[in-house]
């Protein structure tokens, strides 16, 4: 319980730091904060317009009051207004986050499951042909950039074979909406899953390989337990903390990794919004995206720690500390 509270406090502190960075960054950067936050051009904005925006953004008030207003608006889930898109940042994120999740969540799950299955198998066959083949393939895949992987998948499955669509999340006039949407998800989810897989696999495989030498594995074999059960129940349970931590960290990776995939597969998600905001120097949108990403990473971290506590009695009961 104590640990959980400690972790929640540290997560809250992280959140405060992120809020502070988000607030101070446009105000500390060279240039006028009014122009920075509105994207207006110095020569084209009239004095009256400038004053109006300055007041609207609350930049007339002392910094402490501005920070107070900023926090207050965040608590009301008001992430500001994009003068580039001429819309509220919150409404744009609300439209796009579900699209990102539709690609990212299956990718995290599939890559994690594959990593778990392959790493446990390969690690337990340490040095064997299966291990060498899978590990070799993973090392090669780890070196392939996401954009190249996306293009390869499109070239093979959409262009040459014509099995799957080139992009988007749906067809313009789909008759079977669910089947059509699933077809559109296959390539982006595959690309993201394959790009997230090697790092998880390689770490997990080494852990499993080391665990096969442990005494509990020897005892399990001596008890006549099947190899599969030893691998996927006994060994995996012992390396699951590392696995869970990697999956948690993967949330941040997938949110940023989908930035490339969303652009190539023409998916109107958060990654694409961030790309547009960067190229248009749309600070309010960028701030909103970074805030939401940071929240997701912090939330994933909290969940990861809690799951680790639940999984490992040594951590939960503080046995290490007692020793």
């Amino acid at each position, binding site marked *: 319980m104590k640990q959980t509270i400690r972790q929640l406090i540290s997560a809250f502190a992280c959140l405060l730091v992120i809020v502070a960075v988000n607030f101070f960054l446009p105000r500390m950067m060279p240039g006028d904060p009014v122009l920075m936050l509105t*994207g207006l*051009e*110095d*020569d084209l904005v*009239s004095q009256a*317009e400038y004053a109006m925006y300055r007041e609207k953004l609350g930049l007339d008030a002392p910094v402490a009051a501005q920070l107070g207003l900023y926090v207050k608006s965040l608590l009301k889930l008001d992430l500001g207004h994009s003068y580039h*898109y*001429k819309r509220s940042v919150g409404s744009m994120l609300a*439209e796009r986050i*579900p*699209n990102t*999740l*539709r690609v990212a*969540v*299956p990718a995290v*799950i*599939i890559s994690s*499951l594959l990593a778990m*299955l392959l790493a446990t198998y390969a690690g337990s066959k340490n040095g064997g042909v299966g291990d060498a083949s899978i590990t070799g393939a993973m090392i090669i895949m780890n070196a392939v950039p996401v954009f190249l992987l996306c*293009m390869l998948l*499109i*070239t093979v499955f*959409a*262009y040459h074979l*014509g099995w799957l*669509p*080139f*992009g*988007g*999340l*749906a*067809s*313009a*006039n*789909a008759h079977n*909406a*669910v089947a*059509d*949407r*699933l077809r559109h*998800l296959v390539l982006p*989810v595959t690309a993201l899953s394959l790009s997230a897989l090697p790092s998880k696999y390689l770490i997990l495989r080494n852990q499993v390989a080391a665990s096969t030498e442990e005494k509990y594995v020897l005892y399990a074999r001596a008890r006549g337990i099947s190899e*599969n059960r030893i691998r*996927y129940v006994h060994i995996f349970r012992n390396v699951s903390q590392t696995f869970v931590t990697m999956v948690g960290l993967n949330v941040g990776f997938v949110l940023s990794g989908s930035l490339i995939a*969303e*652009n*190539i*597969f*023409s*998916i*109107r998600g958060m990654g694409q919004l961030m790309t*547009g905001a960067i*190229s*248009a*120097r749309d600070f309010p949108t960028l701030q909103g995206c970074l805030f939401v990403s940071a929240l997701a990473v912090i939330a994933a971290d909290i969940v990861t720690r809690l799951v680790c506590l639940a999984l490992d009695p040594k951590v939960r009961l503080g046995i290490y500390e007692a020793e």
Partner: protein
Amino acid sequence: MKKVLALILAVMMLAALLTSCGKAAAPAQTAPLPVTTPAESAEPGAAPAPTSIETLIIGTAADLETPSRSVYNFDVYSGTLSQLAPVYIDENANVQPLATEFATSDYKTWTLTVVDGLTWHDGVPVTAEDIKFTIEYNALQSTGEPQTTYAEINVIDERTVELVLPSANVRHLSGLTTLRLMPKHIFEGIEDMTTATTEQMTIGCGPYEFADYNADARTYTFVANENFIWGKPNVETVIFRTFGSVDTLNLALKAGEIDMVYAYAGGVGAAAAEDFKTAANVSLFPVKDTSNTAVLVFNNNTAPASDINFRKAVAFAIDYDKFRELFGSEYSARSTAGFVPSGTFGYIDTPELVRDLDKAREYLTALGVSDADGDGIVELGGKPLTLELMVRSDIPVYERYAELLKANLAEVGIELTLNITDVPSFREITEQTHTNQAMVTKFTAFGMAMQAGMGTAYMSGLGASNGQGQIMDETFDAIVQRLKTAATPEEYLKAAAECQQYYAENTPAIALFRDSYIQAYNSSLGGFTVDGTFGILNARTWYSVTKK
């Protein structure tokens, strides 16, 4: 193992759940189009359509956002389907009537008459008041100030409006090719255009009606307007679909997933055109060059390019044949002195540009350079002679142009450094600060024709904010004034010839090569009509396009 399989099954179910939790793909709303016989009208709907095409899909790499007149890409694309401008420019650079007939006796007062029977998609007739309103509303929305282009705008009758310029301008109508008419009865109460609803923002008077924006499919769908004055177009439904990259867009055309690729003022690149030649199902259409694909623009007001000897030295150092070989399509041609494309109204022939390193060195000597330290880079005033070249980061081929330029200029001792900038910085520099020394860019057909025409809007440092060439020279300014105030086409053509001659003699910009504006489409289609600004994608094309 059973548990693992159960887990995989659960994941698959979760994926299915996630895909279905979004909005289902909405079918294109069919507009309420009453059944009528094709209207008796002049071109192009007079002849009955030979075949009817159910759906035509146009792929683009441009981002398709919320449909609205205030969104650039929607405005451009709907301008070829659901919105109409008063006039268009044909492939021979002549202005032709579209939504209005036009007349003038002195090139100062232009009379526009709305073509008979033209209505908005809600059935309300398009009137002279709409034209006046469009001009005034656009000015207020973009600058917050009343319009200043015209001295007077007089509504003569229901269909006729008189636009009185402060002085004669023979080319005035070319500026109206992108003035998409707005319905006064819809917008007159809307102070801020961005607050209008999608229905208000998409209503037009063209041969198609906007039907649907599908954010998941990234498509705009337009359906045929049977009530249009030219009758029902040959294509029932036109869909614009966005692709994440130009590469996937081109693959989709080859795979037959789309019928045409379109990039306003860009066309397909030479490498893609070469690749399309190997595809049996793709045809290419080269539109006469009214734009410049690749131009080296000097800042003529900043050293070292403010000295004509430097600009001439650069012009003689460039390997134009290599540029064509590496970047040009089979329709490309060697560049000529004075960068004006041959399809431009007022174009005159000028000598071809050739590489001559000896002459380049002569001009450098005249500039007063020497290579005192013998490192191969010449010095001017004790400092290495360098040219900083600015290129936009979003168009990678510009960096390749820059690499070849760097190698070319190094051969005569000029060091070229590259400044890659993002689009907002590029705009800030080219429209406000003008702190660059040179840039590689493209000139669009519309941009070449803007204001006084002949690319003067790009080159003058005294006029428009987008004066990339920053020419601040009395002689040039006088030519621009003559172009602007020409009272007859003859006067304009004379001034245009002077303008191009000025460019040829003073080298304020260099077209690295000339190329056609290549458009690619599925070979099963044919019969496109060509427009000088938009190529094969325009309102009239929908009445001539056929499926073989």
